[in-house]
Each structure stands twice: as structure tokens, then as C-alpha cells.
């Protein structure tokens, strides 16, 4: 079972809120939901849409067809009518003088009129539309009310929204005279979480004990800091919005040096400004978590859209050489768990960890089973055990060890002095010009990659172990790729997927064997140059000659991938 609802309209018409309400209502009813947002870099006007996909089994991608289109303006009809399924219904705000008749699969709903009539203002036209959609499928009114009250509160505004929605609901039941197949009831206890990638990362950070974030707003990363800032008082954590990204990363480094778990988050342009700081974390061996929520570049690019084009940059960012970790969560669930892992690896190996997400993951909503917090472990790494608590001696913050990891301490009254430096330094952290110390320190730091390597999970393999066709992807495309395998597999194509979520250090122990097992493989990447393919080649020598690349700022859908494979004769 699969139902796709789209809400379209101008920025400012409340598209986002209807979309979220729909997703929430179905999640509450026990369904699996996946919802993405397509919006322009403006606050009013233009054209935005929200797609909500509802299913009784797991979904991790959107589809291009639409069963119900809530067209908050008429432009939405002209833009999306072609995507309608045969039995699909277009709900539009007709009113007086509206040309399109309420016939067939068009439902002329007086959204604004009902809003004014029921709630005294046309501001709730979008909530009316939500109600119409719910009415079309006869969904439980109890859930509708619950969800509206959670969203708008139980006071007057909440009540008005309920009334507006119910008026839409009733209107649909009364007036819709076309064919619409789906009548949906809730199917479970609704015990799934509905959240987006940014929220999952923020929750991961909270679970991991991050108490300090410094960040400068940048789409699509901003909502991580906004979520954390909203919880700062409740949880006692600090979120600071400084003058720029340079300040943000360096503040986080200071806070981490002082002993907290600290992070920053940005998108590519802001990440550019952070790369010198990244090197500072590398040189001073300061644990740090940096989120780069990618969007199409170069430069400002397409500010509100999606792309996977910072992979090579993230791996090579900053001058000089130092170990780092790059994790690219495949979905909302991994966003949470890799956020936790990022903090643990940062502490354990005393280095910067980059969480590489993108707009598609950051702002798409997905249902997941509630994260089991008892599975979250905190590993702060090797800590310095003080023999003389009040020594005031300088301890060796950068002690040269076999593993490259030095027992860690941070400045505390009555503890040893902690010293570090952006210059090459000796074990105590004081600057040095000595050639031999330099070489040993470089080797010490780089040595950390060896044990780090073992922390990196092997890519996911989905579908048969061996197949005629192998798709290779990374990060947020996982859902679309999995579904592609499901669909084509279901049609008898021998196909599987190798998907990377933990990319750097490159999982060299397993990847060569995995790839040598493949026959015809395609990298599928949301970029123009096939960066994962380049990386695979430089790390393994294996050349993936075929690729499906998309770099128009829009996410992949299974049908797009299938279409491209069809062009290749598959």
C-alpha cells in the first residue's frame, strides 16, 4: 500500500505546515512515512511543494507520482498535474469565478472561503486543505484533532485550526464525486518517531552529551542549531551564534579543548570558512564534530536544494596532513547513530569528525522506530590518570605512543597544565623547530588512522551478495537506491546495492573484495563528477565506468534511477 500526497503553493501559504501535519497524522496512525520539501530561496511567493509518501512498509524515498495534490494555488496544478495517477485527485482552491469544474478527479474546494467562514480569517486555508485530504480518505478525526492540537496548541488558535480542518474534511466527504480508491484507517499504535535528518543529528548530539554548539545560520544546516538552541535552557547546553563560521569552529575547538563535547554545523560555503580551523583541530588533536549539510555549489549555488558534491573536499579540506573521519548517514536513523558515533570517535582519536549530510537528508521527514537510548554508549577515549593531582607540571598532551593516541586531559584547577599549539610541537605541546620531533609527531598523528580504520563499518550490501548489476552509492540516496533494488529485483533483474555511510578512513579491508565481486556496476551520485567513484579508484584502483549522476539540486527518486538504467538497456 502506497499513497502519495503533494502540497503545492507559494512560500508563505503554509505548504510546509500542511505537509508536516499530513506526515504526522499518518505516522500517528501507524504508517511509514517519508516526506521531502522542495522550496526556493525566498520567504514569500515562488513555488514550493511538499511530498508525503505513506506506506504500510518501510519507505526511504519519494516517488514522482501523486495521488492527492493539494494545490494551494493554481500554479501548482499546471506544474504538477502531469504527475497525477489515474485515480488521483487534485484539490484546488476554486471559489468564485474559478474555471476548472469540480468534475472527474478535480475537487474544487473553497479553501479560503471555508477558512473565513469557520475560523474568521483566510489564514487557515491550508489547514482546510489538510482536512480535505483527510476527508478524501476518511481518516480518523481523532488523530486529526490530536495532531492539530499538538502543532497549534489547545488554545483558541488550535481550536480554530481543528474547526477549519473538519470543515474541509466534511466538504470532501460531501462533495467529492470522483473515484478515489483509498480509504485509510490507522493501522497501529503510532509508536514511531517522525523526524528529519537535522533533528536526528541534534538528538544524537544530545544523547552523546554534547553541551556546546557554536554555529552560524546556513541552509540546510540551520535547524540543527535551532533545535539545540530551543532546548538549551531545558537541557543546560549552550548554543552560540557568533559573527561568522570562522568564529564558530574556533569557539567549538576552545570548548572541546576545555573538555566538553562540542560541535558546529554549516553548509559548503560556511564549511569553506572552517577549513583552517579543521586543521587546527587536526594539529592540536582536539576532538570536534563538524556537520556539513551539503547543497548545490559552487559558491551560493542553489541555496535550498540538495547535492552530494563536497565529498572530496571534506576528505582533503585544510592544508597539511592529519587524520580525520568522514561519515555520511544514509537516512534519519543513521543520522542519529552516526552523530553519536562521531562524538565517540572524535574523543577516542582526538581529531575532527565530519558528518556529511545534505539538504535531502537534513529536511526530509521519515518515520523510524524510537531510538533505543540504552544502546548509546559514551566513549571519551583514553584519559590521563594523574599521579599528582596538584602538580601544576605540564603533562604530555601529545605523548608519542604506539597507537598515536595520547592520554587526554583538559585544564582543571589543581590538575596538570595542558598545553597545545598550532605550530608543530613537542610532547608537552610547546612549539618546536626540530626536524626529528616534527617527523615523529606527524607519524604519531597519522598512526591514529590505523586503529581508526577498524572502527569504520563496511558499506551496506542490500539485495543478493552477488548480482549482475550493482548500484553503488553513499549518504542520503540510500532510500531511493534500496527501493530501486526492490522494484527491479521484483521484476526479475539480478541487482544489488553497495552503499557507503562511513567513508573516511576508507573501509579498505572490505571494499576491494566487495567490488571485485561485482559485474556491471553504476555509481549513483547527486553530483556531476562522480566523487565516490574517484575515491574508490584512488583507494582501490578499481574503476567504476558507469554512473548515474544528477546535479540539478533535486533528489533521486527510484523511478528516475530506473529510467536511467532502462536507457542503459536494463
Amino acid at each position, binding site marked *: 500500500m502506497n499513497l502519495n500526497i503533494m502540497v503545492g503553493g507559494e512560500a508563505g501559504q503554509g505548504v510546509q505546515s500542511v505537509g508536516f501535519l499530513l506526515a504526522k497524522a499518518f505516522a500517528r496512525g501507524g504508517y511509514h512515512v517519508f516526506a521531502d520539501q522542495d522550496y526556493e530561496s525566498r520567504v514569500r511567493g515562488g513555488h514550493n511543494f511538499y511530498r508525503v509518501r505513506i506506506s504500510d512498509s518501510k519507505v526511504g524515498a519519494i516517488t514522482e507520482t501523486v495521488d492527492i495534490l493539494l494545490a494551494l494555488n493554481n500554479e501548482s496544478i499546471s506544474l504538477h498535474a502531469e504527475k497525477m495517477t489515474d485515480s488521483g485527485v487534485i484539490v484546488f482552491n476554486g471559489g468564485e469565478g474559478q474555471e476548472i469544474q469540480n468534475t472527474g478527479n478535480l475537487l474544487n474546494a473553497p479553501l479560503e472561503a471555508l477558512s473565513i467562514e469557520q475560523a474568521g480569517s483566510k489564514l487557515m486555508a491550508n489547514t482546510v486543505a489538510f482536512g480535505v485530504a483527510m476527508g478524501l480518505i476518511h481518516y480518523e478525526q481523532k488523530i486529526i484533532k490530536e495532531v492539530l492540537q499538538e502543532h497549534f496548541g489547545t488554545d483558541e488558535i488550535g481550536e480554530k485550526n481543528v474547526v477549519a480542518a473538519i470543515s474541509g474534511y466534511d466538504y470532501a466527504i460531501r462533495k467529492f464525486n470522483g473515484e478515489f480508491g483509498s480509504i485509510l484507517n490507522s493501522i497501529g499504535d503510532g509508536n*514511531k*518517531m517522525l*523526524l528529519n535528518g537535522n533533528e536526528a543529528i541534534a*538528538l544524537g548530539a*544530545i*544523547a*552523546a*552529551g554534547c*553541551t*556546546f554548539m*557554536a554555529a552560524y545560520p546556513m541552509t540546510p544546516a540551520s535547524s540543527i542549531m535551532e533545535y539545540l538552541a530551543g532546548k*538549551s*535552557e531545558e*537541557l*543546560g*547546553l*549552550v548554543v*552560540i551564534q*557568533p*559573527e561568522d563560521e*570562522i*568564529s564558530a*569552529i*574556533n*569557539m*567549538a*575547538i*576552545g*570548548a*572541546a*579543548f*576545555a573538555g*566538553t563535547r*562540542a560541535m558546529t554545523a554549516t553548509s559548503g560555503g560556511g564549511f569553506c570558512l572552517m577549513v*583552517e580551523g579543521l586543521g*587546527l583541530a587536526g594539529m*592540536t588533536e582536539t576532538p570536534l564534530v563538524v556537520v556539513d549539510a551539503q547543497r548545490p555549489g559552487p559558491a551560493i549555488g542553489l541555496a535550498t536544494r540538495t547535492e552530494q558534491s563536497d565529498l572530496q573536499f571534506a576528505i582533503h579540506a585544510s592544508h597539511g596532513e592529519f587524520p580525520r573521519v568522514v561519515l555520511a548517514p544514509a537516512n534519519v536513523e543513521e543520522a542519529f547513530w552516526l552523530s*553519536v558515533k562521531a562524538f565517540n570517535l572524535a574523543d577516542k582519536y582526538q581529531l575532527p569528525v565530519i558528518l556529511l549530510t545534505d539538504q535531502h537528508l537534513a529536511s526530509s521527514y521519515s518515520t523510524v522506530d*524510537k*531510538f533505543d*537510548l*540504552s544502546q548509546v*554508549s*559514551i566513549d571519551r577515549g583514553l584519559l590521563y590518570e594523574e599521579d599528582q593531582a596538584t602538580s*601544576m607540571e*605540564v603533562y604530555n598532551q601529545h605523548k608519542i605512543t604506539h597507537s598515536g593516541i595520547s592520554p587526554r586531559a583538559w*585544564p*582543571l*584547577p*589543581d*590538575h*596538570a*597544565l595542558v*598545553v*597545545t*599549539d*598550532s605550530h608543530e610541537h613537542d610532547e608537552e*605541546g*610547546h*612549539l618546536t623547530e626540530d626536524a626529528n620531533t616534527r617527523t615523529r609527531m606527524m607519524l604519531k598523528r597519522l598512526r591514529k588512522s590505523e586503529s581508526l580504520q577498524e572502527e569504520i563499518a563496511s558499506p551496506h550490501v542490500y539485495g543478493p551478495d552477488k548480482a549482475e548489476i550493482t548500484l553503488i552509492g553513499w549518504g542520503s540516496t540510500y532510500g531511493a537506491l534500496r527501493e530501486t533494488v526492490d522494484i527491479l529485483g521484483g521484476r526479475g533483474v539480478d541487482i544489488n546495492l553497495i552503499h557507503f555511510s562511513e567513508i573516511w578512513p576508507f573501509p579498505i579491508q572490505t571494499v576491494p573484495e566487495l567490488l571485485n565481486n561485482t559485474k556491471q556496476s553504476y555509481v549513483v551520485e547527486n553530483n556531476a563528477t562522480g566523487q565516490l567513484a574517484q575515491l574508490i579508484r584512488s583507494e582501490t584502483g578499481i574503476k567504476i565506468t558507469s554512473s548515474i549522476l544528477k546535479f540539478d539540486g533535486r533528489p533521486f527518486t527510484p523511478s528516475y534511477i530506473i529510467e536511467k538504467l532502462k536507457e542503459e538497456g536494463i
Partner: protein
Amino acid sequence: MIQLADYTGATPAWCPGCGNFGILTALNNALVALEIEPNKVLMVSGIGQAAKLPHYTRGNILNSLHGRALPPAIGAKIANPELTVIAVGGDGDGYGEGANHFINAIRRNHDITYLVHNNQVYGLTKGQASPTSDFGFITKTTPHGADIPLNPIALAVAANGTFVARSFAGDIDHLSQLIIKGIQHRGFALLDILQPCVSFNHKNTYSWYRERVYDLDLNGHNPENKADAFAKSQEWEESIPIGLIYREDRATYEERLPALKRGALVQREFDPMHAEKLLNRFL
């Protein structure tokens, strides 16, 4: 008892006669006078000759990037307000590369003491103009003379500083007293320190400064009056006021943070289960 010996670090790599020596002595004297133990101090510095200072005394040290003394100092102070955080750097470091952090740290009033060794030149990179180089100052990068300089005191007053002061590396006692006041000040304390660079600044020498500086304390200046402070910030070439130019009482950034009411971040317990109530809100 804290003694000067507790604050003896590595041998400075500065040029003999450099004004930085006076600043180092004054700082050590101030820390001893305040009876602060080295392990309660965190010194964060940028890059430049001035920024090497922490290695030449003792304390917890984070020697950071050029221009970036303040952001990590701020991060560390928020993480652990029990530390006495002192940021150190040069004029190029703090008023050039790092000027945006400078202005914003001032307005947010972080509880940090900031020592700027203002030698009006880039020392470590061998003598280029700095933002505070005097108008017409000739260097390899300003062969037709430097521009109108940036005025750190005026900017700090304009940026709503709560402790804006100037001292002179050639007057160790004055400087030391002012550092003491700066550290005791609740909020951001700027100490712009006139520092002769004997290698690259042959204009603003010890004697050039000595002929001009005068102590505001002996002059009846009221540091609580902003207009007066701004007026004082405009004096230069002829006479140069040193001392506390402006002071006001305002909540620090750290005091305004609700999160810090429950103790230092660095002392928080780790408990993933704390997130449980948040997860439930997504159900």
C-alpha cells in the same frame, strides 16, 4: 603562595630590547599579585611575536591560529567559567585578521582579559604595515605610506566595551596594575598595550611613546562617561592617554546564559537517557 618562579616558562625568542619583555613581566607580576595558580589560568593566543607569550610563562595554553585568539578563548570560558581566561595577540592578529571577533567579543561581553601587544607593525612576518600603523608609515607593503589607522580604543568604546584600557610596555607597574584590574573586571577587558618593536618600527619607539603617554589616573578622567572616553580615544600623535579609558557594569555573556546556572559544562554528567523525554516528543 604563588611566586614569580611559578610563572617561569621557556626563554623568549624575542629580539633583545623588544617591548614584549615588559608585557611578560607585567603579566607575571599581575598573576602573582592576584595569587592565581597557573593551573587556574588558560592563555589562548593567536599567531605573531606577541602570541608566543604563553610559552614564556606558565599556565594552560592553547596557541591557536593567526587572528583567532578570541573564539577559542570564548569557547573555553563558556565550557569552564572557573578558568581565568587570558587572550593574547598582536595588533595584526587582533585588529587585522581577527577584528570581527574583537568587536563581537566586546559587545557580547565575554568574561575574558585580552592583551593586545600593539607594536603598530607585523613583527613576526618582518615588518609589513599593521591596521594600527600610523598614517604614512612606510613598509615593504605600503611603499606610499599606510592608511588612516584603525583606532582600537574608539572601536572598543563604540562596540559597547565594558573595560577599555591602554597601557605601555615601557611602564611595567602601570601595565601590571591595569592587568590586575582587567582580570578582576567582570566582562571583556581590553588592554591595548603600546609595545615598541625595535626591529621593524623605527617610528613608534620607546622614546616616542615615552614623550607622549600620560596617565589618565593623574588627569581626573572619568572612565564611566562614554563621551569622555570617546574623546580620549581621539588623542594620539601629540599626547597619548594611558590607563582605564572606559568602564561600565553589565552582565557578562556567561552570566546571561541560562545553561550555566547549573554549573560548568565541563563538569556535566553524561547520561544518554536524558534524551528520552525529547524522543517522546517526536512520537
